[in-house]
């Protein structure tokens, strides 16, 4: 990275904005088809009713909320990388910060869709909003679900503004190297940024405050998501460890998604000199750390179930490991804590193929973790006569396909139309080296 000049950094990143090949548009089209399938399934559900999904009594929470928690989790590492590592002055985060922030904005937007989908009668969502109305109704701010509405909308707003603020100098750099319509568009998008010292003076301060505010926010958001469960008196949910457990899990899955996105991006845009092996290695090392925290949380849950002598809790955790959803439990333990430990070997964490495969495995495992927690809790509660099982329907699979397609669709559009690496931060890094 250090051998790159400012001009080479600009060139390498601006070259990625050249008109894409047909193969790019083909992938975009296929992803759009996936989005269309998801949208069609949702429309079908709106017309027919929420009964087309697999939720039942007692398993009233299914894939919609699993995907909600999954995407909120994915959104977390973007802020970890852009805000927390910025405060710690970890220079290695600079090449991946922009893409990770974009991932955050897209993931939290998708996450925000799932409560609407889960509502069934989505047109009544305005009942959740606090405004004077003739119904004389107000939301109950004692409910963690209302905390969640506030937290997620705050997170979406903050991460979007943080992302856009970081983009301003780079939009100006693209504007200055463009002509015609593109120049006009980037001129408007960059707000007329010139890199004047007065602008940098306020920008530096503002960006620092953004990072300082986003750091506690990111921790609070997944804590609030965890309280959707932990504040419910449901075996397997009602535990104080949930907030740190969820935050660590969120960062774990988000970092894995960063690798999943960065590795193809690095190859596609020939970013080997920018997203160096050292950067990927550092992400892998952080995954080992978060994986150990997650593993510790899994162990703690079992320890507390045993130590509490609470028969309901003991039964819940016995069933988790040996019951109907035991495969999900084995996936989560294997994929989230054991396999990522392979990253302790330098040979593994410096092999692109291994990094990519393990990142996919962690994503898979983290999805199953949410399944085990969410469905497992409600399906196997206090009363044996009220135990039940849940399986997603084709409509839920369609909506899930739609959400994953939308994520990659939006990310691909971003990668080819906006600077996917921060030129400003890369120049700062090159300068300090």
């Amino acid at each position, binding site marked *: 990275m250090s051998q790159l000049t400012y001009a080479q950094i600009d060139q390498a990143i601006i070259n990625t904005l050249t008109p894409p090949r047909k193969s790019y548009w083909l992938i975009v089209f296929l992803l759009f088809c996936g989005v269309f399938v998801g949208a069609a399934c949702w429309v079908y559900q709106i017309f027919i009713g929420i009964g087309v999904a697999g939720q039942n009594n007692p398993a009233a929470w299914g894939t919609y909320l699993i995907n909600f928690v999954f995407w909120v989790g994915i959104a977390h590492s973007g802020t970890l990388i852009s805000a927390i590592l910025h405060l710690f002055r970890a220079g290695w985060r600079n090449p991946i910060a922009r893409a990770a922030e974009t991932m955050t904005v897209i993931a939290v937007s998708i996450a925000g869709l799932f409560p609407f989908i889960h509502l069934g009668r989505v047109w009544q969502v305005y009942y959740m909003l606090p405004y004077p109305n003739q119904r004389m109704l107000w939301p109950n701010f*004692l409910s963690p679900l209302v905390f969640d509405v506030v937290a997620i909308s705050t997170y979406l*707003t903050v991460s979007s503004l943080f992302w856009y603020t970081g983009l301003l100098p780079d939009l100006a750099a693209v504007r200055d190297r463009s002509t015609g319509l593109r120049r006009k568009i980037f001129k408007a998008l960059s707000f007329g940024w010139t890199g004047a*010292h007065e602008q940098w003076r306020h920008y530096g*301060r503002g960006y620092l405050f*953004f990072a300082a*505010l986003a750091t506690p926010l990111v921790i609070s958001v997944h804590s*609030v998501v965890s309280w959707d469960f932990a504040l419910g008196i449901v075996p397997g949910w009602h535990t104080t460890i949930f907030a740190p457990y969820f935050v660590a899990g969120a960062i774990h899955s988000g970092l894995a998604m960063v690798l999943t996105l960065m590795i193809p991006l690095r190859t596609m845009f020939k970013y080997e000199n920018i997203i160096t092996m050292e950067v990927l290695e550092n992400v892998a090392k952080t995954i080992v750390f978060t994986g150990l925290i997650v593993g510790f949380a899994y162990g703690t849950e079992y320890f507390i179930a045993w130590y509490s002598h609470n028969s309901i809790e003991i039964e819940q955790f016995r069933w988790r490991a040996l019951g109907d959803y035991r495969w999900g439990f084995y996936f989560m333990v294997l994929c989230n804590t054991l396999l990522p430990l392979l990253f302790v070997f330098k040979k593994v964490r410096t092999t692109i193929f291994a990094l990519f495969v393990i990142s996919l495995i962690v994503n898979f495992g983290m999805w199953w973790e949410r399944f085990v927690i969410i469905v497992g809790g409600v399906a196997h509660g206090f009363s044996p006569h009220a135990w039940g099982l849940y399986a997603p329907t084709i409509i839920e699979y369609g909506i899930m396909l739609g959400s994953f397609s939308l994520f990659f669709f939006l990310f691909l559009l971003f990668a080819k139309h906006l600077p996917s690496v921060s030129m400003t931060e890369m120049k700062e890094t090159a300068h300090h080296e």
Partner: protein
Amino acid sequence: MNSAETHILGLFKSEDQAAESIRELAKSPYSLKRTNTPFPSHKIMDALKLKPSKVGLFTLVGGITGFLSGFLLAIFTATRWNLIVSGKPIISLIPFFIVGFEFTILFAVFGNFIGLLTQARLPSFKGLDQYYDPRCSGEYFGVLAACQAGQQDGLKQLFEKQGGEIKEFNETI
């Protein structure tokens, strides 16, 4: 701005050269107008002896407003019904603190963003039309200075002494 002023932009490959020329300008009869750099340079900021930004004040005001708004909104909505849930008080401070916290962050960020835009005078497209060189968002550090008519050579020499490339703007305003 003096109507007889001529503007000359010194373009430097390194921030050290730009910072040094700023220090030289301070000792000269020429007036420094602006610098344009591809990234925030601490050396240039130090040479310019800038005052700390006031963006933080906007952030603080936003944060305080947010905390009060969130906390009071939660209290207000609870008192509309006076419904006791699980024996908890109507005004439950701990859960309402969570709402207050989220609103603090939200409004502080609004304040921060508004502060950044108003203090940095964005959006503004005037700077692009006046004495701006697009290379300053790439690899050059630009130092714009003005001099009286007839003093151009001295100013050019000052920049050239630091290894700068010269760009003279002939129009005067």
